[in-house]
């Protein structure tokens, strides 16, 4: 779940980007077609997720209504391509006849909410701990660094499954997923932020403000943190697909969001057994998951390259 891009992340230090810097950044980013395509795709996904209920209602479909007439006698979708028709654009789900287009569309909400939510949680924890460790040093640094080591060593997926299985049923499942995935993936961002904070601590402008009597709070949040913003943003972009993948994995394993809430992971899990008789059931949710993770990774890579001329690559 954690993408270890930590070592590649080198973001220019110093003052926040100037107007000129920003223009260079956009220029560089726009030249990376792959990244731009990723950004556009991400925007499309987000818009679709936001308006999914509206879209499905306009089309007269929803992911919960059974349509047994769309199935044959064996419970498999009737007709070509898993029951693709004017009414059901992606065909229907076997055994239920629910509209697969609606399921994929509404499933994007689950994926994006968990993906973004979990990333916010992990970025928050990771940034705060990394910042404190790097800036304060000493025993704080020791404790945080050992914590990072432990978290990186944990078999996170197994812990997530275990927590998913023992959590009380009254606890909202979506929130549980956000917290569990977030809490298990802060360690790499903490390590990167700590490294950068360590470097910034001895820089002139930090020392200067310390000499002028600024408190720790001011130095941390007004001087050091703004210089880490780019790093954190890039890192977050690259973390989201990991979190989305984690949600899909947990739902695939049956400890994700409860049915019948649509989830790509669960659809993929159910579709595996149907692959030989109804391959399209696997293809559509699979493509949706593939599309968003690829787009986010492309976007994240482009962002990093544009922010850091030294990382080389595609300019």
């Amino acid at each position: 779940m954690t993408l270890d891009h930590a070592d590649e992340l080198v973001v220019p230090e110093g003052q926040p980007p100037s107007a000129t810097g920003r223009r260079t950044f956009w220029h560089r980013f726009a030249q990376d077609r792959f990244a731009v395509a990723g950004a556009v795709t991400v925007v499309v996904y987000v818009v679709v997720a936001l308006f999914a209920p509206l879209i499905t209602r306009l089309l007269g479909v929803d992911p919960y209504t059974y349509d047994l007439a769309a199935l044959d006698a064996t419970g498999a979708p009737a007709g070509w391509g898993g029951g693709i028709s004017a009414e059901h654009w992606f065909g229907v789900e076997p055994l239920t006849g629910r509209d697969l287009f609606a399921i994929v569309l509404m499933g994007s909400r689950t994926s994006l909410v968990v993906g973004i939510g979990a990333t916010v949680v992990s970025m928050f924890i990771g940034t705060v701990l990394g910042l404190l460790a790097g800036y304060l040093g000493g025993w704080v640094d020791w404790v945080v660094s050992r914590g990072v080591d432990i978290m990186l060593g944990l078999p996170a997926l197994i812990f997530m499954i275990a927590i998913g299985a023992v959590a009380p049923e009254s606890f909202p499942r979506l929130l549980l997923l956000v917290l569990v995935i977030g809490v298990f993936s802060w360690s790499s961002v903490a390590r990167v932020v700590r490294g950068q904070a360590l470097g910034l601590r001895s820089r002139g402008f930090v020392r200067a403000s310390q000499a002028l009597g600024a408190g720790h709070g001011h130095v941390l949040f007004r001087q050091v943190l703004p210089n880490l913003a780019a790093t954190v943003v890039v890192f977050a972009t690259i973390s989201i697909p990991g979190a989305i993948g984690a949600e899909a994995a947990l739902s695939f394993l049956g400890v994700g969001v409860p049915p019948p809430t649509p989830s790509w992971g669960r659809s993929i899990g159910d579709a595996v057994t149907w692959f030989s008789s109804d391959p399209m059931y696997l293809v559509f949710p699979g493509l949706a998951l593939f599309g968003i993770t690829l787009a986010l990774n492309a976007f994240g890579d482009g962002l990093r390259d544009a922010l850091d001329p030294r990382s080389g690559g595609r300019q």
Partner: protein
Amino acid sequence: MTRNTTRRRSVGAVSAAAALALVLTACGANDKDDSATGSPAAAQQGGTLHILTSAPSINWDPATSQNLAITTLGLVERRLTAWQTNSDGSTEVVPDLATDTGTASDDGKTWTYTLKDGVAFEDGTPITSQDVKYSVERSFAPELTGGLSYHKSLLTGGDDYAGPYDGKTLDSIETPDDKTIVFHLDSAYGDWPWIVSMPAFGAVPEDKDDVSTYTTTPVATGPYKVADTQEGTSVTLERNDAWDQSTDEARTAGPDSVVFELGQDESVVAQRLIADAGDDQNAFGATFVPAAQLAQVQNDANAKERLVTSGPGALAYLAINTEAEGLDDVKVREALQYAVDKQAFQVASGGAIAGDLATMLITPGIPGREEYDLYPAEPSGDPDKAKDLLADAGWKDRPLRLVVPDDAPTRAKAEAIEQGLKRAGLTVKIVTQPAEVWTQTVTQGDGSKYDLTLSSWQPDFPSANGNIQPLFASSQIGDGGYNLSRYSNADVDALIEQATQETDTDAAAALWAQADRAIGLDAPVVPLIYTKNSFLHGSKVQNFEIPDFPAYPNYLKVSLAP
């Protein structure tokens, strides 16, 4: 109590799953006719049979097993009586260790059996009536729970008996000599010959009994002995030389050895058997073919020939916790009868091949069954009527927790139920739990953790008793009992007792039909479908047949083509 996979997977599926394998399909040029007459000599001898099961282990302890007489345990452990499955689909009880199916005296309250000559344990020691008595006695021990328990309330003094481990014996079982065993019952019981076909009525040598290991290393009395156990992976059976075919009319013992492949995924099992490659030609699946593969098989001529589907067997039902808030109102439960979409449930189970729609509790083929439908509606239900009933009852909407085991097939069924109830304005929250946890939730404790659950029930012997008593007698609430509705009605309890004691078969059947209807009026469960079980076997597996009862193949007669 044999459950379908949806129920008791943790305990039961082991047996059910394991049991399926062996029998006969039509292949052998010569066996079809012979098997019709039940001749044991007909089966082809030799080969290694593979039985693919999702069960993680096999429990060989007769005191804690719920195995059917024709499945796994029957290969290794004989009982006083056995089941003979005939090619016309009928199943009859036949002598096994005993010379006959029992001689009743004292108005049906005393049953006497004589053991055959030439029956022995795997080490050659002859089986005595004391070994049988000991086997029955240990099934009462509190440390050995989970087995079939019909006999425990029937034998005189059984209610107070706590097993032989503290030195006490059960005096209602007499062994006047090494060959004779006499059972004294509290009241007459006409189905007793079926009761003594259950695992506990085998033979266990007292000096080899170790509660902690008997579950993996039983002392064999049947045609096979347990030769090797790889925990969680496989169990291998080899021929037991002390077994004599001439004493056994229920088993053909075709294969030289039998290998149970444990912990297999149902879909993978089905895919392997569809592919029919290598050793899988000598294999059959003890698990039901999942809906996805069922659809696949029906479009595959080759595999379709090797698919065997039972007649309607177990009753699949939605149990309503009658002790839960709001659900204690019979009006609300009636509303649920109309709100459920049985058709969607049937499709989620795999369509028409998975079962016929059900309206009552006694399953088809059971003597005395009188078809009725108290809540007539379309197969997809009548949500409007349900809404009216709910309004009448003053139902205050609260989420109903539908607790089910967390496998994909059950989840699909749960969603079909949720979808149906939602149409009537009911809110259902599907809670999935690992199979073991689910069993705890619904069969132990005070039942406060669920409102609805899905289960299915196949009677343990072909009598309406096996349909009704385990699911609806108030004595079966909690403590491992399967009264999942926690249904308690003194009148029904009295009716069940009366029917159990009735020795006249027709009169008993009429009483059971009356009990069925009386329970139906209280609506503690929604009957969904009478399930049909589908199994796949490899191309070299012969004599693989499923009788009308039970809806499982007879492992004891399966043989392999050379």
